[in-house]
């Protein structure tokens, strides 16, 4: 083999460079996994399992949005005797009342910026100018 002295170290450097994300994570910590807060009120049941909600809450919210606004289907869901009107402010935030500690924990970690809060009021925001009637 010609130029053995440069090719083999060069290949080794290349492999090291390509696998950088793998071994970098072995030696360093990639930041702690987020721990979204359980409902402060102690509610244990959601409309679906935690795994399902973790993976599909965004699709579910879109479905609810279309049901409520477009199809006029505002039917109140009843799961395990608890009533859930379809809606972010009407259902989700009633239990998960601290958006800053629940929603934001994962969204910040995953660097996603959902535009829900441009319009929808978090309990904290709503509480800042509570209607008195």
């Amino acid at each position, binding site marked *: 083999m010609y130029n053995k002295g440069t090719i083999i170290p060069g290949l080794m450097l290349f492999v090291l460079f390509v696998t950088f994300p793998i071994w970098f994570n072995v030696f360093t910590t990639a930041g702690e996994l987020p721990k979204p807060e359980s409902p402060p009120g102690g509610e244990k049941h959601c409309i679906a399992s935690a795994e399902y909600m973790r993976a599909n809450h965004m699709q579910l919210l879109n479905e609810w949005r279309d049901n409520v606004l477009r199809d*006029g289907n505002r039917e109140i869901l009843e799961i395990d005797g608890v009533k859930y009107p379809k809606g972010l402010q009407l259902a989700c935030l009633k239990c998960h009342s601290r958006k800053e500690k629940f929603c934001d924990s994962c969204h910040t970690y995953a660097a996603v910026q959902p535009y829900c809060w441009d319009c929808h009021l978090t309990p904290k925001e709503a*509480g800042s100018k*509570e209607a008195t*009637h």
Partner: protein
Amino acid sequence: MDKQRRKFLKIAGASVIAGIGAPAIIKLSGTSAHASGGRVVPAAGHAPAVAHGAHGEEAPKGVRLGMVIDMRKFADKPELLDGAISACIDAHNIPQYPDKKNEIKWLWKAPFESVFTDQSAYHSSKRITETDFAVLCNHCDDPPCVRACPTQATFKSPTTGIVAMDFHRCIGCRFCMAACPYGARSFNWQDPRPYIKKYNKNFPSRMKGVVEKCNFCAERLALGQEPACVESCKGTGAITFGDLNDAKSEVRAILDKEFTIQRKPTLGTKPSVFYIV
């Protein structure tokens, strides 16, 4: 060779004549077919338009929510309308801007001559000239805003007839504002939140860059409640709300009894808000 050329010219000539003549023949026979079918039927449909002047229409289908506003009641008690407007503001997190050019209007007040532009206000009675009229989205049966919307963010609900908005889809092009002949739509030129006095925590606010308008309180109707303005005038008969297509509804009873007018009926938008002046 000559023979073939002669044949070719004959066929070419015949084709040209056929090509020019055929469309004319098809058109002639086609028009008569249309005239006996498509075009005469709608004309016949218009003929029995006697009932409510401009509101004589084809047989109604489904639910069409509408409203009768009795301006005599508001003229006697102007504070009733203020109450209705503030109930609407509280229910829908409507911002209150100090500058009128930013105003967000769902239910608002306007003088007679700007509400009923096709009615003469010449020598009209004191009650007409001195009363503020209650104005809101007319929830037209044939809404021009819906036709103008490029994203279908505004649409007519098939179940209630409400001209609804999906703020998620609004791109803020304001075509609907240009299309609406009633000025019932407002644009958020800035973030409305700092100007919302009190929050209703069960309703969202809007964001900068979307259009908004009255939604006939669809969210309250779903809970079996009346619209906020109707509820605030309860017992006075100033605003009556119901299904215009239901012959037994309260609105229909009033429409049958009283002389009512609509805003700009000549435009053919078929407004669902009626006024007793």
